[in-house]
């Protein structure tokens, strides 16, 4: 049941690509400061669910409420604005702009939100520092290692203090040690900000970083611990 700490609540989500159902009557909720791992075999609907929550896909039925606002009924532009203000996203491959420096990449969301360059730069440095990549903040994103670029991506996702952080296989391209470090830093920062975190992963070691596990199978949520 939603309470005052519930940041995001999805109820009865169903989505189909043509005749193929991707999500069937899925319920999921995220509470402030909570980290949730979303697991499931390939094709189980993990990414579809993530994209519904991010407002990229619109579910065929069901509704998503975030911070007291229905987001699935918003228009494209409003959903875009919602993502910019309230969501942070991390992808498997950092997807930073390779021509910009790490600092500029991290400043980007703040600047798009109208923050002054000076303030944005200070805040970006703060996060890059916390993620241990401040030393290379003036290198171009295309010229740093995968781990560094992924840390910067995490910084970019959190720089504007989003309510919800969505991560899609955030460490899929990293080795175990880097992966643990990035996850630790990401979850610690999110916890400090009180953001809810949803991590899509197929790795148990990643899901072990999260407090709660939701498993999808064939588009449905199976029991919290059901075997994949």
């Amino acid at each position, binding site marked *: 049941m939603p309470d005052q700490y519930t940041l995001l609540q999805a109820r009865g989500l169903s989505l189909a690509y043509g005749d193929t159902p991707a999500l069937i009557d899925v319920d999921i909720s995220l509470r402030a400061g909570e980290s949730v791992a979303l697991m499931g075999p390939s094709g189980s609907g993990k990414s579809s669910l993530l994209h519904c929550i991010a407002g990229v896909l619109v579910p065929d039925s069901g509704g998503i409420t975030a911070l007291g606002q229905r987001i699935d009924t918003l228009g494209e532009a409003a959903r875009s*604005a919602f*993502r910019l203000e309230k969501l942070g996203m991390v992808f498997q*491959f950092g*997807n930073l702009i390779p021509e910009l420096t790490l600092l500029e990449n991290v400043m980007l969301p703040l*600047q798009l939100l109208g923050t002054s360059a000076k303030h944005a730069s200070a805040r970006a440095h703060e996060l890059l520092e916390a993620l241990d990549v401040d030393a290379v903040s003036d*290198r171009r994103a295309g010229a740093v290692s995968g781990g560094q670029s992924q840390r910067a991506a995490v910084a970019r996702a959190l720089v504007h203090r989003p309510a919800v952080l969505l991560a899609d296989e955030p460490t899929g391209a990293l080795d175990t040690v880097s992966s643990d470090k990035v996850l630790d830093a990401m979850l610690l920062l999110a916890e400090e900000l009180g953001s809810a975190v949803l991590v899509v992963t197929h790795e148990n070691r990643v899901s072990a970083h999260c407090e709660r596990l939701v498993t999808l199978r064939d588009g449905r949520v199976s029991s919290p611990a059901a075997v994949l």
Partner: protein
Amino acid sequence: MISAIRLGLRLAGLSASVSGGAARVRTLMVALTSLIGTFLLLVVGSITRSEILQRPAGLERGVKILLLAVVIAVSMPVLSLAATSGRLSAAMRDRRLANLRLLGLSARRTRVVAAVETGAAAVFGAVIGCGVFLLARPVIAGLHPAGREWPLHTLWPYWWATMLAVVTVPLAVGAVSVLPQRSTSRAALLQARRATTRRPSPLRLLPLAAGVALATFVISQAENRLAQDSGSNERLSPYMLAAIALLGIGTLLAVPVFVRLIGDVLASRSGRPTLLIAGRRLQEQPAAMTRVVAGLLIGLFVVTGARAVVVAFEDTQQYRASAIGETTGQVATVYTPARLAPAVRERLDADPDVVQTAAFPRLRASCHVADFCGTAAVASCSDFERFYPGVKGCRAGEPMWVGTDGRPWLRPGATALGVRAELPRNRPGTLIKVPIPRHTVDTDAAGLVNSVDVLLPPSTPGVFELATSRMVAIDVRAEPGIAVETVLDVRGASYSTSPDSTYFSFVNSLRSLVWAIAALVLSVGLLSFTVASIDRATSRRSELVSLQLVGVRPAILRRTQWIEIALPLTLGSAAAIACGLLAGVAFLSYGSIVDQTPWRDTLVLSAVAMLGALLAASSTLVAASPPIRPETIRTE
């Protein structure tokens, strides 16, 4: 080998079993560019041959050079287009081919795969291009641009030119897709790893600076010599040629420096994300965009230069006279016995191609009395101005010089002009004396008034009677654009003077040729630029999708892309046009023509080029904000 070919076809998306949408789009673009390239080369080749066949007596040297310039101006952008399409999605394909090498495919077979992948589409496009040319021949023969005629039977390229045209484009496409194997992916990797991209060396500006300096030198020298009337500029010719070469090469070399500079300026204003991203992208690869527009830039340089060269033809008395005639209608003078004059005038007035006629009797100024051999027309100022709207400053009641003050040619101490009536077979008529004119009637061009040097008012004693006694002159103005000779021939009137319209139409055709080539160069250059830009944007797709996911509005991405593309394009075009103009002016001043820069046409060309550039940039915007689809988010 068969398997390598089959693999190449598969990768091109041509085999039915592959559902690679992007590969098919790329293949389509290669085929399309190859089609257009081949078609254009064939058209230019056939028109060139038609021109040559129609002047069997041997071409003038100027025309030969012009045809060569045309072929160069068209082939450069076409080849650049072919090269561009051959390198589409280069990074992705280089990686794929490198993987084939790792699988154990030999270097030779890998090259076969690469060549077949793009070459097949290029050959296909070239074949279709030939077909389109065959279909278009009657249409081209039906065109009469600026009076040129290209009869259908002459509209075939030489056989070797055909071979060249059909082979060149696919070969160029195949070659560029094969040549940079291995070396580039490694270089690209190194480039990507480099912490900061190297700034293009400022030394690149040297050739341009040298070219500008040399051209300025040539122009100033030529002006000095003209002022001192010290004859030929032959001595300057090596400098002039060097200046033109330096300007052409210098433009291409210098554009990356300026692009990088602008990138720096944009990026330093980091308050605006749009400008920042565009600026950084320009800083990253300032030369990449310039390489793509190189063909366009060379084309624009040549075209602007050629437009300036046409001035050399326009800057002649002949041309100006007939040019004015062409806009207000050509004028001829018909001589007829006085008694037939009314009937002749009536007949001419009835002709729909005749605007108006006027009877201005002519007298011949005696060469013996005043040492001034000229023609005098007898007319009142008002009649004269009505027929020749360009004349100004006519004073009623006194004799006037027309166009030029004739007094310097008079014998010193002359007190009067002697005039006689025009008689058949130049028999001398009665001589009467008239006062020497003291003022001059202004005309737009001396040739405007048909061979009249002096205007005598009908009130001058004895003049009118003398002039109308035997032969009468009737001035006839035809409709603009109609050759007055044809009208008179049809009417059977005998005439003495009329403008030379062959020269006029020749210069006109030169100018339309320059414009036609300009249009071609622009559209081909912009096409290849557009194709390359879309390809670049497509290869950035996952980055663009993720930015949109982060919440960046598509409008911002489009604006960024627009700045990134429009800037080097407009800048490059402006530089090429300016340098082309400078080169042209240097050439003109070498030919002792100054103050005749074709500013208006250059401005029009610049405006059209800029507009085209902006349109081309806009047309690539679709690719700047690709739709967010789940499958595009995860791909690396």
